[in-house]
């Protein structure tokens, strides 16, 4: 029984956290206090729901509890709080509180790492410990970063509002980058025992869905949601039940989530009808080519290479995109051609500590039976990889040489 209530609270946390915090913040005009009261409301739910039952509208219940607690705190601390700078809110500006919260967390006056941390904590409701673990910093460092960020929002008076239509496009860019970064961090965790951190990927997808719901006409938002859905659809096939890494080439495609792929492709089509493709739309298109290919052998590499060419133009020649393109060339034209395509990238400083470059070279060398060079490249990839599932995979390849 208790576990049912815990599950109900967890579900309400996943679904309603951002809404509860965002609404409370408009009352408190202080993100710190709003965060504290929201956390408190969830703690109370764990006590009250098993006794009185789960309320019919959990989100409304949590918002009421958080807001009442906030009003109490504000009355108690009225004299003190008058001296603190307050969050600037725009009460007449209609719109969703969650959007206000997202755009405030991703304000361009905050650094990218701060934007990501704030969004993960305040919008996705991850604990400071979880956020710290995801971005490889000690918990006190992350706590200090979050505190500094909230202080800057209050002191510099970063307004708690959605941007005006004329600045929407430039303000949306960082928001989409942040959601994408949250997803990729969870898709292949930078460190730890698990390959995938579903708390992060699920949060990012939920956030992208929220943005899409609130801004259904934005082609850029639609494309991002498409990308996340199609990529995430492969999750069940990416590791064996024993937790070992399975490469795309070896994945059991019957495990891919076809409903999610269909939804993603429909969204992508819609996005491409509205506007010329953004970076995320092209990435979604690449993911869709894989998703629609009946087998690895039948993959349309020429199509994929063409899409990487478009992506190279859109990203101003991103070295990571160039690497992926070179790998695709290797799969179409053979390991010799792949190695040649990778060669110019080995001098690229941005890829010097990028494990996938060494791993790709190692794979092509292995297939060319250049065993000693392949072993050296696998060693190099191992030295740059902290995720244990990926390390196990590289070790097994190294042993099989």
């Amino acid at each position, binding site marked *: 029984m208790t576990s049912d209530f815990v599950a109900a609270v967890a579900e309400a946390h996943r679904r309603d956290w951002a809404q509860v915090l965002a609404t409370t913040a408009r009352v408190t005009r202080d993100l710190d206090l709003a965060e504290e009261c929201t956390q408190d409301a969830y703690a109370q739910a764990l006590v009250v729901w098993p006794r009185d039952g789960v309320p019919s509208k959990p989100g409304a219940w949590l918002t009421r509890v958080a807001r009442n607690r906030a009003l109490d705190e504000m009355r108690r601390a009225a004299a003190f709080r008058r001296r603190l700078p307050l969050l*600037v809110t725009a009460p007449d500006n209609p719109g969703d509180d969650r959007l206000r919260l997202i755009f405030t967390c991703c*304000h361009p006056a905050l650094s990218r790492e701060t934007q990501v941390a704030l969004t993960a904590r305040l919008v996705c409701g991850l604990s400071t410990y979880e956020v710290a673990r995801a971005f490889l910093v000690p918990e006190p460092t992350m706590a200090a970063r979050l505190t500094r960020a909230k202080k800057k929002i209050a002191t510099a008076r*970063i*307004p708690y*509002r959605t941007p005006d239509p004329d600045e929407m496009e430039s303000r949306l860019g960082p928001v989409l980058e942040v959601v994408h970064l949250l997803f990729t961090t969870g898709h292949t965790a930078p460190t730890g025992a698990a390959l995938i951190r579903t708390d992060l990927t699920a949060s990012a997808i939920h956030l992208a869905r929220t943005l899409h719901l609130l801004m259904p006409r934005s082609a850029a938002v639609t494309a991002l949601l498409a990308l996340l859905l199609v990529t995430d659809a492969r999750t069940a096939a990416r590791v064996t039940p024993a937790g070992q890494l399975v490469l795309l080439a070896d994945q059991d495609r019957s495990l891919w989530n076809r409903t999610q792929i269909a939804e993603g492709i429909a969204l992508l089509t819609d996005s491409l009808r509205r506007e010329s493709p953004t970076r995320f739309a092209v990435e979604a298109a690449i993911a869709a080519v894989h998703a629609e290919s009946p087998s690895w052998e039948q993959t349309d590499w020429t199509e994929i290479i063409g899409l990487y060419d478009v992506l190279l133009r859109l990203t101003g020649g991103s070295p990571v995109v160039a690497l992926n393109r070179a790998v695709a060339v290797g799969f179409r034209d053979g390991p010799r051609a792949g190695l040649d395509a990778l060669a110019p990238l080995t001098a690229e400083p941005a890829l010097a500590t990028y494990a996938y470059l060494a791993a790709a070279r190692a794979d092509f060398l292995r297939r060319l039976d250049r065993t000693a060079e392949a072993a050296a490249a696998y060693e190099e990839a191992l030295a740059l990889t902290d995720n244990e599932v990926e390390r196990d995979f590289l070790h097994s390849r190294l042993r099989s040489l």
Partner: protein
Amino acid sequence: MPKYTLLIYGDSAQWEALTVEQRRAHDAAHADFRDAAGDRVIGGQELEPSPNATTLRGSVTSDGPFLETKEALGGFYMLEAADLDEVLALAKLLPEVQAGHSGVEIRPVVEHP
């Protein structure tokens, strides 16, 4: 109303190298900024180049600015505005934002009770 200071930093050599025409365009851009900001501007001055500065530190008096950097403080504005977005929208009108060698730092002012 909250106050902000806009600190204008740049390479003095490049400012001094402006032609008469460029200087006129530069001044006109500042006039546009002041028109747009209206009575939100509560102060501001252009400063003489940093070699003309004198710095006191302990018992030492020295010739030059506090920080010897290529980009030096060249001037400032003091604004009153409702929030940072309002300041950002105005500050983008300053010619130093687009000049390449220069930029504008926005600092909220401490409100003493």
